[in-house]
């Protein structure tokens, strides 16, 4: 990937109660050039997003970060966690007006078709079986690009001249499909910036729906005869 400035790096919020798995997902995401914040529970994830204040307003340890201060481009969460499961977190995020557009990815060590389809139906973009591999993370880029470009659209409408100037000096070189979005911006410098962004967002939405279908097919083509494992919430 390799986005240059720190401001344009994707920021992923990773949620897992296992410190080992947190370390693993953090390294995987860093290798993918993402900025990572890890938390060990759904509650801490909501606090970080700024939703925590409503739920645990009496908690003196609650983070006081306001939603606007921290931009999160993707949430990746374990399914099986004590207290609030990944599915519970997914529901809360998707039902919140402020954060429903943040893509959410679920990870699980259990291959349970009913669980997978339930998560996808609730709005999860992808469902990864653990252990997560670098190839899985490649599927995330289109989803993160969507929220990233929306933010960039707001910034760049204010400064259209910068886009034109950049296009004049950049040599278009498409290395992989996920960078197409950025390249279109530089190639079509003659168009109004607003038109360019609309086209890019449409492209990303097309890729997004393709990926979603693919992951559903992958998720459902599993062995249905295996016994279902109910997520055991550990008593802490």
């Amino acid at each position: 990937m390799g986005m240059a400035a720190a401001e344009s790096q994707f920021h992923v919020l990773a949620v897992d109660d296992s410190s080992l798995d947190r370390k693993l997902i953090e390294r995987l995401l860093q290798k993918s050039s993402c900025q990572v914040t890890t938390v060990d529970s759904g509650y801490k994830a909501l606090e970080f997003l700024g939703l925590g204040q409503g739920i645990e307003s009496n908690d003196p340890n609650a983070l006081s970060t306001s939603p606007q201060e921290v931009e999160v481009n993707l949430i990746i969460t374990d399914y099986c966690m004590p207290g609030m499961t990944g599915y519970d977190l997914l529901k809360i995020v998707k039902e919140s007006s402020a954060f429903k557009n943040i893509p959410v990815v679920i990870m699980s060590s259990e291959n349970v078709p009913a669980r997978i389809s339930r998560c996808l139906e609730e709005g999860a973009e992808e469902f990864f079986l653990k252990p997560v591999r670098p190839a899985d993370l490649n599927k995330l880029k289109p989803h993160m690009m969507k929220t990233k470009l929306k933010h960039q659209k707001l910034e760049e409408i204010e400064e259209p001249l910068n886009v034109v100037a950049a296009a004049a000096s950049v040599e278009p070189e498409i290395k992989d499909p996920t960078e197409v979005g950025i390249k279109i911006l530089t190639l079509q410098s003659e168009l109004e910036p607003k038109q360019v962004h609309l086209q890019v967002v449409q492209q990303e939405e097309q890729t997004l729906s393709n990926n979603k279908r693919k992951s559903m097919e992958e998720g459902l083509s599993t062995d249905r005869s295996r016994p279902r494992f109910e997520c055991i919430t550990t008593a802490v």
Partner: protein
Amino acid sequence: MDALVAQLQMQYRNYTVSLYQQGFLDDQFTELKKLQDDASPDFVAEVLSLFFEDCVKLIGNMARALDQTGTVDFSQVGASVHQLKGSSSSVGAKRVKGLCITFKEYCEANNYEGCVRCLQQVDIEFKALQTKLQDMFNLEKQIIQAGGKVPQVDIN
């Protein structure tokens, strides 16, 4: 000096391959090694350290849950087994993971003897792996001290 490095490197290669062949490690361990680089030079050692800490903690939980003089709460045992299975899967500890699968079945069947047997085996197995990996890391250190580089070992 070069002859020593070459000899150590060969020893290291053979040892690593044997760990995979004997089923101690699977391809997830290979993935862990790929994640180690100059930015994160001790990544594998750090992750394994977390794994062995998990083993000690979770096996302790299982032992306590199985040591009830009254009725054993098999779901409590199973919860710890589930976590250990996850951790072992994440690091590529193949034998430990395999044992956890069997262990989980005994928990679900409320089979006390089966659980106790699995607990003993999982304890032996994680300690055996710990020793093997320590030997592997020691070989890496020796190679570096002799002025050589630790080779990337291709399994298969």
